[in-house]
């Protein structure tokens, strides 16, 4: 799944971005603004994240029940496999001794699916954004150092990227999360350890172009140190690229976390959309055609991943004007 970024990266690396300097931070702000003004889909992506972020923050208030505790009827038995109230036969709930107010029904051990869905947004966003932030920081620093210093530094960092490209992604995450304690943070670290490779390569190739520009030589002549040149003069021009790859990284991280949870390598105490689907899959929800259980978590994953794609494409269009007319 990481191949899109790599292939894109290699193609785009040769295309030169429009470099505009002047006040670097203001420029960055304007680029960000331009992305969301120009591209309605990018704005839509941002709205999707905003909605899910609100849901995630207020999850305990929004969710009607605890996502992990099985619900019980009057006789103290689990309310297993209740249909959503808009699908269930009227009166069935009273016979079984409970009131059916479940928007999406219950699982095979009586957990409220809707509450799980609400709580699932927490791990998705947490994993997505923290992994993307780590990927963006590592990739940017590696790209800056490799591109600016060249020589041995470049050779070592780029061979490290080759190694990261050679390690099978999902198998690596599975093995790491199985060997360490099951926690979403191990998944985040494992993803960050590999996914910086695309960002690093692309930013390196852009730095190679920028460091030949007049303003960099001017800074050098005026006695600025290497680190100052890298982080004060060069970094602001490539930061939009960092945002581009960061947005795609959010998407990949959410998808990967879902896959790993689906395969059963996540913390069973943390509800995530991938975990819900694993639960449904293992308890044969498929053969019971329990669409109310299978469809919602997948839709949520798809929406958040698409939000990342939309924002990433918005940056692409602004950064690589040749793509604009598409």
């Amino acid at each position, binding site marked *: 799944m990481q191949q899109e970024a790599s292939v894109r990266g290699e193609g785009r690396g040769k295309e030169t971005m429009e470099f505009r300097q002047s006040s670097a931070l203001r420029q960055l702000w304007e680029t960000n603004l331009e992305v969301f003004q120009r591209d309605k889909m990018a704005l839509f992506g941002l709205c999707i994240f905003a909605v899910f972020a609100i849901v995630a923050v207020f999850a305990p208030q929004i969710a009607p029940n605890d996502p992990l505790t099985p619900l019980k009827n009057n006789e103290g038995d689990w309310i297993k496999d209740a249909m959503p109230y808009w699908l269930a036969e009227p009166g069935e709930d009273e016979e079984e001794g409970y009131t059916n107010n479940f928007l999406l029904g219950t699982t095979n051990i009586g957990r409220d699916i809707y509450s799980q869905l609400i709580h699932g947004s927490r791990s998705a966003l947490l994993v997505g954004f923290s992994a993307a932030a780590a990927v963006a920081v590592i990739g940017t620093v590696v790209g800056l150092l490799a591109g600016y210093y060249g020589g041995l530094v470049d050779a070592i960092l780029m061979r490290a990227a080759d190694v990261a490209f050679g390690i099978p992604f999902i198998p*690596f995450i599975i093995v790491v999360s199985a060997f360490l304690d099951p926690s979403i943070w191990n998944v985040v670290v494992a993803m960050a350890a590999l996914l910086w490779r695309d960002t690093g390569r692309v930013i390196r190739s852009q730095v190679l172009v920028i460091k030949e520009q007049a303003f960099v030589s001017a800074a050098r002549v005026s006695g600025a140190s290497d680190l100052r040149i890298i982080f004060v003069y060069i970094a602001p021009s490539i930061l939009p690229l960092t945002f581009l790859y960061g947005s795609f990284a959010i998407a990949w991280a959410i998808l990967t976390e879902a896959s790993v949870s689906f395969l*059963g390598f996540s913390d069973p105490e943390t509800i995530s959309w991938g975990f819900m689907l694993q639960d449904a899959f293992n308890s044969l929800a498929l053969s019971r055609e329990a669409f109310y259980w299978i469809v919602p978590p997948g839709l949520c994953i798809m929406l958040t991943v698409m939000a990342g794609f939309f924002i990433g494409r918005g940056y692409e269009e602004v950064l690589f004007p040749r793509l604009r007319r598409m």
Partner: protein
Amino acid sequence: MNRGVAYYILGRFLQSVMVLWIIVTLLFLLFRLAPSNPLASYIDTTFTKQQEAALLARFGLDKPLGEQYIIYLVNLLKLDLGDTFSYSGKTVLDILGADLPNTIYLTLTSLLLAYAVGVLGGIVMAAMRGSAFERIGTTFTLMTRAAPQFWVGMLLLTFFAFQWKLLPSSGIGPPMVRYRWETEWDKLMSPVFWRHMILPTFTLALYLHGLPLLLMRSNMLEVLDQDYVTMSRLAGYSEWRVMIQTAARNAMLPVLTALTLGIGYSIGGNVVIEHVFSWPGLGRTLVRAVQQADYPLAQGAFFLIAVIIVFMNFIADILYSLLDPRVGASAQAQVS
């Protein structure tokens, strides 16, 4: 082929060997991270201390780490991946050898399907740019890339296997039929096998088609801007002839590289689909091995997948440099 290219290929090859060696070393260290000693699930509580020690000695686990590493490297070079814990009497190589063909059939069929649809789709999208059809098509493609593969697989299973009972839900065939397959050829000639492959292939291809489609579309739009395309338009060729013969041929190059890379990455990424459809391939074996703490098997599967990925990355690099002279020149400069 001139000498520069030969040197470039040799250089890249040596680099790939280095990369593989580093990965193998990381793999060795990674598996030393395992929660308890690698034999934990193997050693029975009734074992005496002597029996335990004998077992550790048999697997070389009583030796210092450095020595273990050397033994490990030598064994890998001899392609001796050890014995599994969970399947008695079988070596890791036996199991992976049986899995690998299944993974390859699934991956290659899906990739071919996905790239055929993707390339054609990309040409159509480029030709119809700006239309409502193009917007809907591109959005659909983005959706297939955003939807988790296992979820798409689950939905297809629910409809085609459970609700309409049209297709089998898992595996590569019932035991009665599998029993009769003595060779891989028998398997490939069996309609039952192909019927089992329909759903996983379709799920995988649906996911994979997005990359070639989007890549082909943007390459086409780029190529259509070039002078030679304008020239063939001016020469009075029909629009479709310009599209297919002139533009598409040139836009294909990056897609071919993506296909080569895709073979490696799909084999590593098939884990989830193989799990959903209980497809007996490398990915499913890896997941099971990790779950059952069968470390030699997990390590072997991981190693094999890594070898395939590094090798395909190497091939893609070479292809790219041979097909695109600009890359060749800069690549040669890099090596020298």
